[in-house]
C-alpha cells in the first residue's frame, strides 16, 4: 500500500500545468527571437518537421518529468506493509517421528506410514504462526533434529530430509520420548505438547516407553500417541540409506495398537488410532483445538521509504533533457 509522509508536496503538482502553460503556450513568453514570419492578414510561414518536433516535445517532457519526480520524492513515498506481531509465546510442540523399517509399510496406498506422517506433519506446521515446534526422530537411536523453533522454513526443510532407517533398524520409542521430554523441559512455553507418530513396539534404547511416558505429567507435558498403521498383512518397501539396498516384503503384525493404548494416561496422555490419512488429519485437528492457545496479536506497520528511487530517475531525466535540447537540437535560447 502506498503512503506519502508529506502529501502537501503533491499539491504542488497542481502548479505544473500552469508552469507548462507559461513556458510553452503563454503569448507573452520570452526566450523567443522576433522575426517576420507572416504576411499581414495573409499567409503564414509554417513547417512540418515531425522528427524534430517530436524531439522538441520529448525533451520538454523530460524536464517536466524530472520536476514531477522531485515533487514525488519530496512527498515521501513509501510502501507500507502490515506485519503481524505476536505478543505472547505459544505452545511448544515436539514431534517425535518413528523411522524404524516397519514404518515403510504401505497402509495408506500409495504412501507408506512414514510418508503419510510427514505429509500431515507438514500440513500441521503450515497452520502454526508463533508456536515453537521441534523434531525428534528415532530408529536404533533417538536424535533431536530440530530444536524448538518458530523458523518453520528450517523445520520443513529438515523434515523433508528425513529418511527411514537413517538411525538404524531398531525402534527406540522410549528413547525418542525421553529425548523429546528433555528438550521440552527446558523450553519457555506456557503449554507443552508432544506428538508421537509410531506404529508401536520398542526394541532398542535404554529407556522403556512406559517409564518415559510416566515422567511426562510431572513435567507438565501433554502427550499424544498416534498409532499409525493397520493390523494384518501389509506390503512393505524400505530403502537402507547406508547400503542403498531396497527391501520389499510383507509386514505382518507390525502394528502394536494395544501396546500403545496401554501407554495412554488421560488426561495427560491420549491415544489416537490413525488407520487412514483422513484420520491423521482429524487427529491433528483435534490436537490443535485442544492445545493451541489463543494468540495475542498486534499489527505492526512497516514503512519502506522509496524516495531514493525517484531521485536518480529525476537526475537522469534532467540530464537527458539537457542532452537532447542543447546538444542534439542545439537549442539557442
Amino acid at each position, binding site marked *: 500500500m502506498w503512503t506519502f509522509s*508529506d502529501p502537501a508536496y503533491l499539491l504542488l503538482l497542481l502548479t505544473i500545468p500552469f*508552469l507548462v502553460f*507559461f*513556458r510553452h503556450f*503563454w503569448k*507573452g*513568453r*520570452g*526566450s*523567443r*527571437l*522576433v*522575426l517576420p514570419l507572416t504576411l499581414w492578414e495573409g499567409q503564414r510561414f509554417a513547417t512540418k518537421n515531425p522528427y524534430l518536433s517530436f524531439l522538441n516535445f520529448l525533451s520538454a517532457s523530460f*524536464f517536466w518529468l*524530472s*520536476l514531477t519526480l*522531485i*515533487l514525488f*520524492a*519530496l512527498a515521501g513515498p513509501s510502501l507500507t506493509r502490515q*506485519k*503481524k*506481531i*505476536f*505478543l505472547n509465546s505459544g505452545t511448544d510442540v515436539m514431534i517425535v517421528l518413528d523411522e524404524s523399517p516397519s514404518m515403510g509399510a504401505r497402509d495408506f496406498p500409495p504412501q507408506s506410514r512414514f510418508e503419510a506422517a510427514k505429509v500431515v506433519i507438514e500440513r500441521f506446521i503450515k497452520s502454526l*504462526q*508463533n508456536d*515453537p515446534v*521441534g523434531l525428534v526422530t528415532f530408529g536404533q537411536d533417538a536424535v*533431536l533434529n*530440530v*530444536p*524448538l*523453533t*518458530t*523458523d518453520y522454513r*528450517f*523445520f520443513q526443510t529438515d523434515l523433508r530430509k528425513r529418511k527411514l532407517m537413517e538411525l538404524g533398524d531398531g525402534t527406540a520409542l522410549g528413547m525418542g520420548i525421553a529425548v523429546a521430554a*528433555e*528438550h521440552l523441559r*527446558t*523450553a*519457555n512455553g506456557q503449554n507443552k505438547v508432544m506428538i508421537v507418530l509410531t506404529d508401536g513396539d520398542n526394541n532398542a534404547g535404554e529407556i522403556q516407553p512406559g517409564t518415559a511416558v510416566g515422567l511426562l505429567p510431572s513435567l507438565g507435558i501433554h502427550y499424544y500417541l498416534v498409532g499409525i498403521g493397520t493390523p494384518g498383512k501389509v506390503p512393505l518397501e524400505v530403502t537402507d540409506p547406508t547400503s542403498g539396498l531396497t527391501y520389499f516384503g510383507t509386514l505382518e503384525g507390525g502394528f502394536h495398537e494395544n501396546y500403545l493404548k496401554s501407554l495412554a494416561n488421560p488426561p495427560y496422555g491420549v491415544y489416537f488410532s490413525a488407520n487412514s490419512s483422513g484420520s491423521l488429519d482429524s487427529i491433528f485437528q483435534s490436537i490443535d483445538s485442544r492445545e493451541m492457545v489463543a494468540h495475542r496479536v*498486534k499489527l*505492526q506497520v512497516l514503512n519502506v521509504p522509496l*524516495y*531514493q528511487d525517484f*531521485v*536518480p530517475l*529525476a*537526475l537522469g531525466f*534532467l*540530464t537527458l533533457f*539537457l542532452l537532447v535540447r*542543447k*546538444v542534439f537540437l*542545439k*537549442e*539557442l*535560447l
Partner: protein
Amino acid sequence: MSFARPEVFWALLLLPLIAAVLLGVYRRGKNDLLRLGGAWRASPLLSIYLLKSFFQSLFLLVAFFGLVVAWAGPAWGTRTVAENQDGLDVALVFDVSWSMTATDVPPNRLGQGIEAARFLVRTFPHTQFSLVAFKGQARTLTPLTTDTDFLNNWLNELSPSVATGPGSDLEAGLREGLRSLDTPTNHQKAVILFSDGEARGGDTVAAARTLAAHGVSLFAFGLGTDAGSTIPEGKSALVDDFGFTVITRRNSGLLRAITDETGGVYYPSANRENLSDLQERLVSLANPASRGGVKLEAVQQYPLFLNLALLSLFACLVIRILPWRKLF
C-alpha cells in the same frame, strides 16, 4: 554528517562536464544570435543572452548538485524515536573458512570465537539464538531457539567441514543470519559475527546496509592478528597454487566498516572485557526501558537538497519565461 550512499558522489563529475557543454552551447549560440538578430543591435542582444545563459546554467548546475547530494542520502543530527521492541533474538554467524584455523590466537581463531559464543549462550538462557556457518556458501545449523544443549552441541561441531564451497563469502553469511532472524515477534534483533574479516567475493557492505535497513545491529569479533599467520595443513602450512605459503591477515577495516553501517560495535578480540561490553549492550537492547524507551536515529536531510533543486529549476524556468527588454 553521514551519507548512506557515498559512492553516488562520483556523479558529481558530471557537473564540470555539463558546465563545459553549456559553455560550448553559449559560444555557438552567440554567433547564431548575431546572424539572426542582427549586428545593429548586437550590444543589447549579447548582454541579455549572456545574462540569461549564465543564470540558467548556474541554476541548472545547482539543481544537479542538489539532486546528487540528495541521492547520496545525507543525514545529520539525531532525533528520538519510540522504542517498541523488547526481547532479543541473536544470530551467531561463524566464518568457518580455512583461514579461521590459523593459530595466531590460541587455540585458533575459530576456537576463540566458539568460546565467546558459549559464553553468550550461557549468559542469556532465555534469549533465542540461531547459528549460521559460512565458507563459500552459508548454512543455518540451528534455527532460532532457546535450546541451549542443541546450540552447544553444534558449537562443539564447528569446523570448516560444516559448510561448503571455497572462499569466504561474508555477504552470504550476513544475509543468512538475517534470514534466520525472520520471526513474527517484536524482538530486537542482533547479528554477532565471528570472523577474521578476510572476505572474498560478494558485497559485504551492501549486506550490512540491508541489516541496518531492517533495524538489526551487527556486532563483530575480529579474530586473528593484523600481522597475520600461516594456515596449518596437517603438520605444515597451507601452500597456494604457485607454491607460496599462504599468509592470512585479519581485516579490521572491513569489520569496522560493516559494524558502523548498523550502529554496532567492532571488537578486535574476544577477551573478557569485550565480552562484558557486548553483554551490557545486548542487555540494553533487550530492555529498551533501560534506555528510557527511546532510541536515537539520524535525521534524513535529503528534503533540504531536493528543495534546493526544486527552487533552482523553478528559477531556471522563470528566467526562461520572462521576456527582457522587449528583445527575448
